[in-house]
């Protein structure tokens, strides 16, 4: 369970990223974070994976208290999380298989586990036949699928996505979104910041709207609610 309680994030320059935000996400939920650019969606995601700490308030993920956690325990939390970015952050010198395998190598997985897990995840994201290609040989949608495969390969409890379809055309974005739904159906909790209005409206999932660093709306089966 993710619990955010009375969190304010104030940056050293005096700018407020978030003001008095409280939010609870249960296991197995699928949550869209929506709102204008600069509203604080990314800040919220960054707080969840420990890249930033709140100025006041509490952030808890399962038994991890992110506000007081020692930095050296951060890796343990991160192994429960799969993080997907708009700019996928693939390694250009490694092919698809190696990019996904890298995430397993660096947490100390064995060759055997890697050989078993990576093809499964590539199958799930529909890239099994592209495993020997390098990132620059892939389309934007395919690159994002690699990013998702990498986030999933260590079997995270939570998947955090910061505008994963931001760079993609509507059809590809729809495919990617369906992939996240499938991941959620298989048990992972998904928190996604997005601007994909049509998809949010269509999917009827929980929608949390953020404006000016505050939560202004939280609906169980919500709509995007903004004109784009």
């Amino acid at each position: 369970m993710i619990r955010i309680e009375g969190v304010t994030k104030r940056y050293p320059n005096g700018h407020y990223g978030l003001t008095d935000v409280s939010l609870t996400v249960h296991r197995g939920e699928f949550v869209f974070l929506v709102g204008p650019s600069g509203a604080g969606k990314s800040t919220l995601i960054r707080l969840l994976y420990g890249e930033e700490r709140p100025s006041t308030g509490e952030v808890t993920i399962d038994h991890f208290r992110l506000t007081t956690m020692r930095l050296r325990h951060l890796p343990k939390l991160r192994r429960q999380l799969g993080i997907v970015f708009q700019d996928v952050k693939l390694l250009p010198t490694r092919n698809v298989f190696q990019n996904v395998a890298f995430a397993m190598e660096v947490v100390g997985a064995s060759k055997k586990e890697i050989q078993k897990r990576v093809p499964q995840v590539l199958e799930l994201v529909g890239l099994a036949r592209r495993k020997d290609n390098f990132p620059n040989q892939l389309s934007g949608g395919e690159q994002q699928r690699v990013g998702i495969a990498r986030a999933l390969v260590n079997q995270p409890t939570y998947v955090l996505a910061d505008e994963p379809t931001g760079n993609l055309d509507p059809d590809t974005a729809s495919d990617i979104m369906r992939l996240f739904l499938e991941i959620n159906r298989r048990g992972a909790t998904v928190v996604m910041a997005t601007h994909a209005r049509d998809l949010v409206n269509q999917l009827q999932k929980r929608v949390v709207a953020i404006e000016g660093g505050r939560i202004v709306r939280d609906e169980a089966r919500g709509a995007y609610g903004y004109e784009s």
Partner: protein
Amino acid sequence: MYVMKRGVHTAMSLNSMGHLLRETGRSLTRNAWMALASVSTVTISLFVLAVFVVVSVNVNHVTHILENQVEMRVFIKPHVSRRQEMVLYHQARHWPQVRRIDFFTKKQAAQNLKNEFPDQQDLFQVIQKSNPLFDGFDVYTKTPQQISTVAARMTKDPIVHNVVYQGTVVRRLSRLGNILKWSGWVIEGLLAIATMLIIVNTIRLAVFARRREIQVMRLVGATDWFIRWPFILEGLIIGLVGAAAADVVVGSGYHWVLGRAATSLPFWPMAGLHRVLDETTLFTVVGGLVVGGLASIIAVRRFLKV
């Protein structure tokens, strides 16, 4: 359910070991020129260190030999009769400062030399035919302070050619040894700083070259030390390779010097190759590892925010 938990690997497993070696090797080859520059700098500064060690081992060697020799040696002018020599001998025996006095002929002197330098047999063939050495006395005083008094008295005697007393030589040599040691440490300290700056920069470039990997590693939960180790290892390897290169250069250099010294300075006692190499290897390997390790730790702390 799709979600399945796995424990966090905190200990360095064999898998991680393989990763560590692969990543270090990759970084060193990708950064080959910078790595080479670092290794050369390490080599040069450790070479200087090793030269200091070589000189200082030799100074100590000579000092030690001299300390174990007689306190004072009095050489008699050539063509002085044995009777005149014996007169001085018997007088000196009763000087209050003299503890003991031994007479030696130039023949005995030649024999002693021959025993001290077994490698120079052909030279002694010549010496035995027309011996250029002197007769003389080995004089021991009751206290070291009396050496100069006795030496002065001996020098005044008309049949005495010259007096060599090792006390001063030993004192001068050990002072020289100290000066060498201290100037060596100062120069070496400066070189170590310069070397470290270059290694720090090499590691910094390596960190920069791998910034994407590092970012991904952090995001998927690699531990700090898992990320750091390849860079630390890179620094250690640079230090070690530099040390090995310096040892090869110094070893072959000293081997060559020993060869030259045997012909042109046959009476100069040089410390043996193995003894010198033992010392230089110890200093260079420890020095290389310390400089390389320290530099990479500094670089990782400053440039690798994990």
